[in-house]
């Protein structure tokens, strides 16, 4: 029994507690004392344990049960999505020269509710954009939270707006389509609108191919909202649009446009078109139209200006159709090149309708029917051929059907089924009336003749590669050779296409002066003048089609269109370095004629005798320029010695007209004395 002062564990200073046996003593009350420390310990442990469990429970609740939701909320805070729009693809010509490109450009917009000082903002914008404050204020009149102030502004204006750092005024990047060659092939290329969507021409036809794609990237962002691309993940997608490469050659295109512009303005035409095609491949090297259209400023033009006449407009081809009818007649053995036809002295009645010739003819061979472009001769051949066979040839040549070029809105033209033809129609189709064609169809049909009877498709785009149509033989090579000879006679002899003749080269072609249908019925006095030809005749390499609508006062194809053909052909050959070489004598005469015409007043006072080089005799070069004189002597195998100063020959040795002796050909003995004016001082 414990007494007061005694406990089970007695601690003495410096000693370990040792158990002492309880000494039983006699007490007055037998009460028992509990050890509460264990309970206290247990209690604390339990409380701590519970707290620990609670912590774990909370962790479980946060990590496992609410974890995904909280992770999502965290992601929203440090991640952001960004939309990226790809740049629109470019357009190139066959040589890789740029025809169309998109560039980044800034646009300005305002969030009106964020503006602190509207007056100051408008003032700054007015200075930067060059617009009156009043106009800018009107735009703010709307209740919209986003107001465009100016779209597609210059870099300098954008820099001014950016430097001003006005709250509520923002810049955004857009793409602007630029055409560095301005109106070169404007109608063909077309244009795209503000949203970089193709609206006309090839821009519309190839919009899906050219258009950039949109992509959404998930990116991290920092506390200020700036987006951070931590790695390239997610950005492997190429959003840029694809490029296209055309068959056009910019230089030949320019040459064609220049010649066309001259023709259209000289003859006050409504419009004009010129196609240049490479015969072997069918590649279109030039697609020229006039009046021109500049796609950089498309808003300033009316739709008629950007209309693609070559692909869309149809017209009655007139005499240009005759070679195909003649070829079909020869192919079907209905006639030969020398078959004679009576041309009714200019007036032929078919089914009570009268067919006339421009000039009255009596008997003409098929060659001369083509050369002199007799409507009556062609009508008789067509009638002999019959409507079924005639239709078959025209249909296979591509008339009445699209050419297959990747263009929107291309017209089929009109070629009615033969079952609906009356006799007069068979006759008139023979000389190109009662049928409606496009410039493309005519070019494709003449391409068949240029390829010796094989119809090949026209090509406009090199990349992406289009599936080509199959080639089709329509005429035999022998028939076509005969027809080509007839077409060359149109130009080389006394035919209607003399103005297309090129010295040193044989050209084959056909003129046409086709009446246009009148709105009140019948035919009016308006015409479509054209010349379609190719060169060299022996093995054609280039085809050129020139069409001029409503020329005045002249309207014959041979007068209006043939000279344009010649100019385009010469300049194209000059660009390609393939101008025809003339024999020396003929070249000299020609050059002297041209030089004489271009000489200035001062030069014209000089003795301008042009001396032909006679074989075996010393040429007379006195008065000629030193360059010319040296060339003449070099042509004779002699390099003369030059003495004195000046640009013209004043005296020569040996004397002109003297027969060449071998010793005279020594340069020491062959001397030219020069002077500034070609006269002896």
């Amino acid at each position, binding site marked *: 029994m414990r007494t007061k002062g005694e406990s089970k564990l007695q601690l003495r200073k410096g000693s370990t507690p040792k158990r002492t046996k309880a000494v039983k003593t006699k007490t007055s009350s037998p009460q028992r004392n509990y050890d509460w420390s264990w309970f206290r310990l247990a209690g604390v442990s339990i409380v701590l344990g519970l707290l620990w469990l609670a912590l774990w429970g909370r962790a479980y609740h946060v990590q496992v049960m609410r974890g995904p939701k909280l992770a999502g909320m965290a992601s929203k805070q440090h991640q952001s999505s960004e939309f990226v729009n790809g740049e629109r693809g470019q357009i190139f010509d066959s040589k890789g020269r740029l025809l169309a490109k998109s560039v980044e450009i800034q646009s300005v917009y305002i969030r009106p509710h964020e503006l602190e000082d509207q007056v100051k903002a408008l003032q700054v914008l007015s200075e930067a954009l060059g617009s009156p404050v009043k106009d800018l204020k009107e735009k703010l009149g709307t209740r919209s939270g986003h107001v465009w102030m100016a779209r597609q502004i210059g*870099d300098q204006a954008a820099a001014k707006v950016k430097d001003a750092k006005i709250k509520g005024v923002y810049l955004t990047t857009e793409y602007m389509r630029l055409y560095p*060659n301005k109106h*070169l092939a404007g109608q063909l290329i077309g244009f795209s609108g503000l949203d970089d969507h193709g609206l006309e021409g090839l821009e519309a036809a190839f919009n899906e191919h050219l258009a950039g794609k949109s992509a959404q990237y998930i990116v991290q962002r920092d506390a200020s909202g700036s987006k*951070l*691309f*931590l790695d390239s993940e997610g950005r492997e997608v190429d959003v840029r649009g694809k490029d296209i490469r055309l068959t056009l050659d910019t230089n030949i295109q320019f040459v064609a446009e220049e010649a066309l512009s001259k023709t259209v303005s000289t003859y006050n035409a409504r419009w004009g078109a010129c196609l240049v095609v490479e015969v072997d491949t069918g590649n279109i090297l030039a697609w020229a139209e006039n009046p021109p259209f500049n796609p950089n400023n498309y808003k300033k033009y009316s739709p008629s200006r950007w209309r693609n006449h070559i692909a869309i407009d149809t017209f009655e081809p007139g005499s240009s159709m005759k070679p195909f009818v003649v070829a079909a007649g020869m192919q079907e053995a209905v006639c030969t090149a020398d078959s004679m036809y009576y041309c009714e002295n200019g007036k032929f009645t078919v089914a009570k309708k009268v067919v006339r010739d421009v000039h009255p003819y009596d008997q003409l061979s098929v060659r001369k029917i083509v050369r002199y472009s007799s409507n009556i001769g062609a009508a008789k051949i067509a009638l002999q051929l019959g409507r079924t066979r005639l239709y078959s040839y025209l249909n296979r040549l591509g008339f009445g059907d699209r050419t297959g070029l990747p263009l929107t809105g291309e017209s089929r033209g009109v070629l009615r089924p033969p079952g609906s033809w009356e006799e007069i129609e068979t006759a008139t189709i023979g000389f190109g009336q009662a049928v409606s064609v496009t410039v493309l169809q005519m070019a494709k049909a003449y391409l068949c003749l240029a390829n010796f009877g094989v119809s090949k498709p026209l090509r406009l785009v090199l990349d992406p590669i289009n599936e080509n149509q199959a080639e089709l033989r329509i005429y035999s090579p022998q028939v076509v050779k005969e027809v080509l000879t007839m077409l060359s006679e149109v130009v080389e002899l006394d035919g209607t296409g003399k103005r297309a003749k090129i010295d040193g080269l044989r050209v084959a072609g056909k003129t046409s002066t086709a009446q246009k249908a009148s709105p009140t019925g019948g035919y009016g006095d308006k015409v479509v003048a054209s010349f379609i030809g190719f060169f060299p005749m022996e093995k054609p390499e280039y085809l050129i089609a020139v069409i001029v609508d409503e020329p005045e006062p002249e309207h014959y194809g041979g007068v209006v269109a043939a000279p344009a053909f010649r100019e385009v052909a*010469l300049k194209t050959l*000059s660009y390609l370095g393939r*101008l025809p070489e003339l024999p020396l004598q003929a*070249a000299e005469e020609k050059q002297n004629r041209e030089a004489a015409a271009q000489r200035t007043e001062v030069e014209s006072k000089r003795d301008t005798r042009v001396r032909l080089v006679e074989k075996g005799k010393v040429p007379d070069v006195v008065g000629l320029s030193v360059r010319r004189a040296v060339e003449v002597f070099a042509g004779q195998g002699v390099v003369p010695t030059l003495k004195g100063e000046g640009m013209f020959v004043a005296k020569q040795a040996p004397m002109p007209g003297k027969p060449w002796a071998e010793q005279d050909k020594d340069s020491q003995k062959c001397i030219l004395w020069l002077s500034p004016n070609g006269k002896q001082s």
Partner: protein
Amino acid sequence: MVNLTKGWTLLLSAACMATLLLGLAVVWVSIERTNLVYGLRKMEHKMTELESHTSKLLVERDNLVSPYRLRQLAAEYGLAPAATGQIRRLEVRGE
């Protein structure tokens, strides 16, 4: 017994130290990575600006060499396309 306890104590201390160091390293790498990203972002912006500028210069260059402009300049300097008979071809013979 005492040695064993000492060993475990040392091991525990080393583990704590390593953990601390690794943690610091992770934080440092993360900060460096973020700084790099900021630097990359600046360079990307700069590159985009330069590309945009180059793009505009290319268009300007093509405009300057467009056939219409060259024709105007040629007319100013009295040049014209060669006509028939104006081209002289020279043969280059080997030595």
